[in-house]
């Protein structure tokens, strides 16, 4: 290879690599700008939650509170309009029990669809897929009427009990996982004399843990953030979960933005902890939802 050829090639490469650098620079500029924009509301929650009230709408906006009022958190969490321990317990109770119900029922049903042979199985599975398309709006009112007739309105039963009857999407997700487990496991367990329930509980269930985790995490998040369900069924403020309690707090103390932001952050933090603890499940879950749902 001659020196000239080398020089031409490297010049071309240099040109290409400098163009590449420019593209990358543009890419990261946009990505970072959007990320900053995305973080501002979070930042503003934190900043506002530490401000004295008169600085909330200061002109120009104040980025550093003076003084930093950590007290706001105590004031918000001990405010009679925001009964924090009660609200927190209610949220944990609702999300926890519902999630237990969802995990148990969905795993059981998914196992049935994936590993058992019975008449009409494929038909029922199709029906289940169809129910995934059924919008909640069309079942909301009769469901309320039903719970009202049996006297459950006003408590958590209407929000929790349906969880024990499975949820189409999670059943679908878990079924995919059960389908992929080797049949030899079932056969050899049967030879050892294990019944179907035994096989399901002690052999198969531990193997679908990743999918079960996705189910648990998403259902917990969904209940924690649920607003309309508690709004429909609960009227006694001592029974409110955090989401509804936060709204009630806002309607009572419209202008106390600093306390409201402190309360908002406190309501959000458990979900952030959940997210960072189970980030992989979150991302996997959304990916599966999007591609195969």
């Amino acid at each position: 290879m001659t020196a000239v050829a080398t020089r031409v090639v490297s010049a071309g490469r240099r040109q290409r690599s400098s163009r590449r650098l420019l593209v990358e620079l543009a890419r990261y500029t946009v990505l970072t700008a959007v990320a900053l924009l995305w973080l501002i509301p979070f930042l503003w929650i934190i900043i506002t939650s530490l401000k004295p009230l008169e600085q909330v709408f200061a002109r120009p906006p104040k980025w550093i509170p003076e003084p930093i009022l950590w007290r706001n958190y105590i004031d918000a969490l001990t405010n009679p309009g925001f009964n924090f321990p009660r609200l927190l317990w209610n949220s944990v109770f609702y999300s926890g029990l519902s999630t237990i119900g969802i995990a148990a029922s969905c795993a059981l049903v998914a196992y049935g669809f994936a590993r058992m042979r019975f008449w009409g199985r494929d038909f029922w599975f199709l029906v289940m897929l169809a129910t995934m398309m059924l919008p909640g709006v069309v079942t909301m009112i009769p469901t309320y009427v039903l719970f009202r007739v049996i006297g459950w309105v006003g408590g958590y039963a209407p929000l929790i009990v349906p969880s024990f009857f499975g949820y189409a999407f999670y059943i679908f997700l878990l079924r995919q996982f059960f389908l992929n487990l080797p049949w030899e496991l079932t056969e050899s367990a049967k030879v050892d004399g294990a019944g179907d329930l035994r096989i399901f509980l002690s052999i198969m269930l531990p193997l679908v843990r990743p999918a079960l985790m996705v189910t648990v995490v998403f259902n917990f998040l969904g209940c924690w953030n649920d607003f309309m369900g508690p709004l429909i069924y609960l009227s006694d403020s001592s029974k409110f979960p955090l989401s509804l309690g936060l709204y009630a707090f806002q309607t009572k103390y419209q202008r106390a933005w600093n306390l409201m932001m402190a309360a908002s952050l406190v309501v959000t933090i458990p979900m952030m902890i959940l997210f960072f603890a189970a980030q992989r499940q979150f991302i996997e879950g959304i990916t599966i939802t999007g591609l195969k749902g």
Partner: protein
Amino acid sequence: MAIASRQVNTTSRRQRDLGHLLSQNLKGYAFISPWLLGLLVFNAYPLIASFYFSFTKYNVLKPPVWIGLANYVNMFTADPVYWKSVSNTLYYALISVPLGLAFSLFLAILLERAVVGIGFYRTVYYLPSIVPPVASALVWMLLLDPGNGLVNSALRSLGMSRPPGWFRDATWSKPALIIMSLWGAGGGMLIFLAGLKDIPRVFYEAAEIDGANYWYRLLRITLPLLSPVIFFNLIMGIIGSFGVFTSAYVAGGSSSGGGYGPGGTAGGPLDSMLMYMLLLYRYAFRYFEMGYASAMAVAMFIVILVLTLALIRTSGRWVYYEAGSRV
């Protein structure tokens, strides 16, 4: 003798097989029984009852009274608020869904080729999606305060003398809700990101050898191959945005105070944030007009159903499925 014993043998085997089959079926149905019961109680009954209630006058306390099509006639011809809620919801859906799709796709395409920090950016973009909707409505009400909210302060310092009134202004309240919904575009982005990863590298390599530039590859490879994912997000986005409730409830009801009258279902200035679900909720759970509210629910259900079927039907024209088969 020999024949007889064989016969006995086969019948008993057949009996055994039948018994086995029966127990297998029983066990199978036992496993799916929770869902079957749920199907009956929480899907089938409510679906049928919704249709039935929609032809009645029903306030929960007294048994429903059949009034034929009166609810529908009322809804479509006599209730101006109904059409207001329809147009508000359409406005919101038709702008927020395409905008959200475009934006999340844009982010996903940028992020997919990023070498470092992909985890960081992904986390930051997705984070708003886990914030409780009430909390995110509150922070956006603060940010978009017409007086000295952060956004309007920024707009003023950029030289805009009269920035929008956002949630306090009938013209700007829906754009404010749309901005709020865009903050949650990270979920869609994650789905697109996964879709992009599924596109075989070979296509790009072949195109590069043929000298195809970036835009050609984007329009001829990336977008067509991603179309099933776009399609899915479109359906889910539209259905989701028809059901918009919490943000409008919190932001629109703030001026009317809770407890009395329409409360959170007030719908903001000049009913500009009166979304379909808000009105439905108002009729059902504030006024206990379950018949009328059911008619609203059925109308919405039919629209969603038709839309979904139409999208599935026409998807063959523009959605590419792998293995070259066009559905």
